[in-house]
C-alpha cells in the first residue's frame, strides 16, 4: 500500500469500515510510514474532539468532506516543500525582443571593433615606444579612445616613455659609475662637463613642457637630448 491509498482509507479505518485484509495492510503501512501515522493521529484527535464536544459538531455524513479539507491543508503545506528545487526555466533566443537583440548585437560589434582597432594600433606602433615625439599625435579617434579609457592621454604617454628612457639611462649610468674611477682626470672632467650641458637642456625642456605639455617641438627636442645622453653614457661606459 502506498501513502495515497493510506490517506484515502484513514477515515474508513477509524470508522472500522474496512475488511480485515485491507485494515491489516494499512496497519503495516502506518507502522512503517511516519507521515501517514502522523496524519492518522491528527484525524483520530479531531474525531475524539468531535466526539467529546458534541455530536452536532461532527455529523457522521460529513466525515468525507472533513477529510477532504484536511487533505487539502496537508497538500498545501507540502507544496512549498515540492518547490524547494525548482527546475530552471529554459528560455530560448526567441524570448528576447527584436530591439533587445539588435542593441545587444550593436554593443558586441562596437566593443569588438574598438578592441580590434586598439590591438592593431598597438601591433603596428611598437617602434614608437622609444620616441617621445609620437606621444602627442592624437587625432579624433585617439581622443575617443582616451575618453573611453582604452588609450593613454599624451601626458600619460609622455610620462611612461620618460620613465622607460630613465630606466635605460640609469642602467648605463650605473656602468659608468663602475668605470669612471679608472679614467684620467681630463676624461672625467670632459664627461661631467658634457653631461651637465645635456642635463641643462633637459631641465629647460621640462620647464617648457610643464607650461605647455602639447608643445610637440619641445617633446621632439627632449627626445633628441635624451638620445644624446644615452649615447654619451654608453660610449663612456666602454672606456
Amino acid at each position, binding site marked *: 500500500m502506498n501513502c495515497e491509498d493510506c490517506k484515502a482509507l484513514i477515515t474508513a479505518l477509524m470508522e472500522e469500515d474496512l475488511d480485515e485484509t485491507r485494515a491489516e495492510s494499512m496497519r503495516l503501512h502506518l507502522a512503517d510510514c511516519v507521515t501517514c501515522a502522523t496524519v492518522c493521529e491528527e484525524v483520530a484527535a479531531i474525531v475524539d474532539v468531535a466526539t467529546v464536544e458534541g455530536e452536532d459538531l461532527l455529523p457522521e455524513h460529513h466525515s468525507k468532506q472533513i477529510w477532504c479539507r484536511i487533505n487539502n491543508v496537508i497538500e498545501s503545506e507540502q507544496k512549498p516543500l515540492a518547490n524547494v528545487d525548482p527546475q530552471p526555466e529554459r528560455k530560448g533566443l526567441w524570448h528576447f525582443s527584436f530591439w533587445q537583440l539588435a542593441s545587444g548585437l550593436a554593443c558586441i560589434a562596437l566593443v569588438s571593433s574598438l578592441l580590434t582597432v586598439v590591438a592593431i594600433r598597438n601591433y603596428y606602433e611598437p617602434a614608437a615606444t622609444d620616441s617621445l615625439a609620437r606621444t602627442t599625435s592624437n587625432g579624433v579617434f585617439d581622443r575617443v579612445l582616451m575618453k573611453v579609457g582604452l588609450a593613454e592621454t599624451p601626458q600619460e604617454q609622455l610620462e611612461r616613455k620618460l620613465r622607460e628612457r630613465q630606466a635605460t639611462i640609469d642602467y648605463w649610468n650605473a656602468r659608468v659609475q663602475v668605470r669612471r674611477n*679608472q*679614467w*684620467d682626470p*681630463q*676624461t672625467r672632467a*670632459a*664627461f661631467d*662637463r*658634457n653631461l651637465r*650641458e*645635456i642635463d*641643462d*637642456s633637459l631641465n*629647460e625642456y621640462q620647464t617648457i613642457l610643464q607650461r605647455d605639455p602639447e*608643445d610637440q*617641438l*619641445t617633446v621632439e*627636442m627632449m627626445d*633628441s*637630448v635624451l638620445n*644624446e645622453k644615452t*649615447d*654619451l653614457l654608453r*660610449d*663612456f661606459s*666602454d*672606456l
Partner: protein
Amino acid sequence: MTLVQQSRFLRTTVACVSVVFFLCLGASGVAAQKKFSRTYPAGQTVRLKLLNRTGTVTVEGWDRQEVRIEATLEAPAANITPQSLSGEIVVNLVRDNEGRGEVGNVNFAIRVPFYTMVDIETVIGNLSVSNISSGLVRAHISSEGDIVLLNIGASNVAAENVMGNIFFDGELQDGGTYRFSSVKGDIGLRIPTNSSFRVVATAPSTRDIVFYQCQSPDLTLLGDGRRMIGKCGAGSASLSVTNQRGSIKFFKR
C-alpha cells in the same frame, strides 16, 4: 777672479744648465710619444671605420689607390690593431683598449682614396675629413670636439657632437641625406646656391637660424622661430640640422 768675472761666470753657468734642462725635457717628451704607420692597398670600394678614444683624427682624400694610416700615440700608449677585410679597414681603439684605465691621446692622420666611405668616431677630440666624394661621410664625437668637413661630395653625410662646432663645406648630391646635430656649439654649412634640397633646421634655445639666398626658396618658420622648414630648388636632397643650444648658419659656396 774679479767680482765682474764671477758674475759673468755665474750667468753663463745658469744659461748652460737651463739649455741642458730644456733639451732633456724635450727629449723625454719625444721619447714618451710613439709612432704608428701602416699602408693598405685599396680596391674599387674602400670603407674606413675608425673608433678612437681621445685625440684628433684627420682624414684626407688623395688620388692614390692606397690607405695610409699614421698615428702619434701619447703615453701611456694605446694598443692599435687595425683589421683589413674585404675592402673594409677597421681601427677600433675602444675595443683594443677596453678595461685599460688611462690611455694617452692618439692623433691620427689618415690618407684614403677620395672615393672611400669614411665612418669615424671618437669619444673626445676633433675630427676632420676633407676631399671625399663617396657614398658616406660620418663623423661622430661622443662628447666634445669640433667637426670640420671640407670639400665633401658624399651622398650621405652625418656629423654629431655634444659640445663643439660643426662646419660643412661641400656639395649636396641629388637624393642625398645630410644630418648635422649638436647640443652646444655653432653649426655652419657652406653649400652652393644652386643646391636642391629640403631643409629642417631647429635651434630651439637660441632661435639663431641664418639662411642664405638659395634658388627659389620656399621657407617657413615654425614654433616661434625655433624651427625653419622649406626647400630650395626641386628639393631633391634632405637636410636636417639640429642645434639644441647654439646657432645654425648657411653660407654661399
